[in-house]
């Protein structure tokens, strides 16, 4: 135990003392907003060139030019062959042909262009034509525009999740918390993705660290004073602590920033739902949005999420970290490692893909199974958590994860003890198995 601590201490301090750690920790949170910002920038500045769409219209629906986004639809009397040439010479983007049809059964509308148009463009053009037809219909049926407008109704649903205790004060009402399924989706995705990222990045760190010790040949010097298992454990714990430190810094930063903004906006997250609702009637729009966000955040049990996150983060990290350590010990260089990291990475990558299914339907059997199965539970239970998970499922999942972690560490230790001293032999799964079952090494 003493020696694990010494190894741990070195591994941890070596990494945390590096400038790159501090810079990485502070800059990484900025990457996400930056990424979103860049995406929005490119989306909005997309198609800067005005695209001209010539329209041959046999119904006289489109009489004047219609501009939308960066596009403009221009009615024309030209022949399609001529338009075709213009498209090919990039004079115009496309040609829209609206044949003569019955407005109650419009069909046969065609769009010609050199490249396949985006879904947005098609959707927009369809909307425009539908709108035009609607106008003709209103006239045709002699309807009143004003009464038509009155038909349009907008309803938005507020969702509440019922907690299991019924408050005794107003015994007729269930104590309900305002919940937001969008919020649950977003937070679930965020948590799952964060664990995915950490398991991958720090798992690779472990592999690298073990491999470095092996290739710099310092490992035999060390294991003459430390048992291989102690060395491996110290290393895994050390790298894990670095990851943990990083997360802790982020949590502290997030709490600090949110406290700062909430005091700035004068909103207390513990306010009751009613108060929030009354506040929402406040005419100040920007305040309303900010309160809305805080309201959503306060609707989920932050403490529970953080604690569960830490458990699954550590569990997932140790589970995969053990395997990465075993791989690092067995191979001689990174190239050789890739054939073994692939099968180990597969469940992690699969978790990310299954996340869509789980977030879409968090209570389905497949979601429940995936959030129990130890190789996928760290990511997928975190994805499910914000939608509400029964306690027994959570406990069972954590229990299975802990069992698997213990098994993985034991398994990895048996590979590791042989692997770190073996160089130059071709590593196969069969050989790894022989190392694993070897009684006495």
């Amino acid at each position, binding site marked *: 135990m003493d*020696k694990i601590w*010494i190894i741990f201490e*070195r591994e941890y301090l*070596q990494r945390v003392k590096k400038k790159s750690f501090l810079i990485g920790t502070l800059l990484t949170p900025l990457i996400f907003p930056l990424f979103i910002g860049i995406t929005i920038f490119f989306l909005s500045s997309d198609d800067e060139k005005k695209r001209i769409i010539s329209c041959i219209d046999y119904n006289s629906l489109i009489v004047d030019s219609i501009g939308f986004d960066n596009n403009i639809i221009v009615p024309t009397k030209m022949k399609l062959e001529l338009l075709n040439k213009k498209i090919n010479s990039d004079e115009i983007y496309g040609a829209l042909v609206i044949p003569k049809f019955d407005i109650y059964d419009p069909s046969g509308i065609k769009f010609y262009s050199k490249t396949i148009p985006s879904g947005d463009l098609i959707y927009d053009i369809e909307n425009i034509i539908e709108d035009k037809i609607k106008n003709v219909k209103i006239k045709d049926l002699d309807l009143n525009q004003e009464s038509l407008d009155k038909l349009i109704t907008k309803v938005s649903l507020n969702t509440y999740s019922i907690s299991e205790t019924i408050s005794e004060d107003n015994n007729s009402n269930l104590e309900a918390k305002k919940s937001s399924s969008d919020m649950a989706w977003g937070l679930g995705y965020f948590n799952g993705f964060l664990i995915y990222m950490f398991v991958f990045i720090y798992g690779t760190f472990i592999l690298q660290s073990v491999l470095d*010790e092996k290739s*710099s*040949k*310092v490992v*035999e*010097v*060390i*294991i*003459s*004073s*430390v*048992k291989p298992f102690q060395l491996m454990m110290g290393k895994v714990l050390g790298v894990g602590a670095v990851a943990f430190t990083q997360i802790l810094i982020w949590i502290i930063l997030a709490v600090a920033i949110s406290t700062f903004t909430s005091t700035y906006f004068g909103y207390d997250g513990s306010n009751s739902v009613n108060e929030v609702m009354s506040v929402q009637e406040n005419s100040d729009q920007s305040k309303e949005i900010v309160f809305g966000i805080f309201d959503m955040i306060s609707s989920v049990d932050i403490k529970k999420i953080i604690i569960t996150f830490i458990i699954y983060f550590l569990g997932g990290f140790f589970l995969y970290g053990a395997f990465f350590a075993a791989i690092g010990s067995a191979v001689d260089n990174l190239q050789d490692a890739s054939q073994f990291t692939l099968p180990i990475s597969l469940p992690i990558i699969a978790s990310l893909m299954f996340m869509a299914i789980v977030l879409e339907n968090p209570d389905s059997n497949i979601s429940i199974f995936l959030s129990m199965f130890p190789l996928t539970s760290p990511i997928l239970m975190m994805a499910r958590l914000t939608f509400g998970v029964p306690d027994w499922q959570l406990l069972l999942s954590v229990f299975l994860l802990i069992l698997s972690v213990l098994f993985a560490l034991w398994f990895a230790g048996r590979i590791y003890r042989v692997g770190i*001293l073996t*160089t130059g032999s071709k590593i196969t799964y069969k*050989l790894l198995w*022989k*190392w694993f079952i*070897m009684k*006495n*090494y």
Partner: protein
Amino acid sequence: MDLLNVKNICKSYVNHRALDNISIDIPRSSIFGLLGPNGAGKTTLIRIINQIINQDSGQILLHGTNINYNDIRKIGYMPEERGLYKKMKIGDFLLFMGKLKGLSRSESINSARDWFNNLEVSNWWNKNIEDLSKGMSQKVQFISTVLHNPDLIILDEPFSGFDPVNANLIKKNLLRLKDEGKTIIFSTHRMESVDELCDNLAMIDKSKKILSGKINDIKSAYKSDIYKIKHLNKINDKISSFSVIDSKIVVDNIYESEIKLIKKISSSDLLRLLLSNSIEILEFKQKTPNMNDIFIMKVEEGNNNG
């Protein structure tokens, strides 16, 4: 009194037998050479003594009792495959190694300072390891091996990577450590250093011990009956006591010859015999085997038998 007894050690790996019933006794306050070609099993034996790996059967006794995990503090091991953490400072590395051996911070610092003096290096405490030359890193490795003042020092191919000046410095220090009562095992396939340093040796080939004992005893047992002579006038073939293996003219009438005794006669008898055959002797030398010759001879013997 022996410091270390290796008793009937056997060890097999997945595909082959690495050690076959090896027994070795290593006296206290001596330098012991563990010799053998590459792949003979030397490193396996050393790893077993260091408890890095376990033997299949047999015993290791240190100070007469079964070795256990706490004895690791009494051993300093410099493996053949050795390296350092590139991204550390020398001081931090030595503190780390000292801590692993149970040294306090101040003990490590004091011991390191002594060794910096012994190995004639200036204070390297704050130097980065990645800035070190190969010879310098070897010195740091050696210091980390002996930092905790171990009773038993095990060096696997210690002189690879050292220039002759630094190799001599290390040899000098090894002899000093021996005089202080330390026991040194040193494993190598390069025999020159064995001749200079070792008191006892064991030779391992193909996982078996093929030779062991005091180095002087071994040498005299393998003393050859070959003489090298530089002389005037050609040696007459008809002398029946010896045969001429090789003879060549250096200049004019001066010859260099190797002769092998057929009858057992003393060196002075041989000299007299030559002089009486009107051969004028310029140089006369009995060929004594060095460990390299014995080593090659024994290994070839083994190859022929196997």
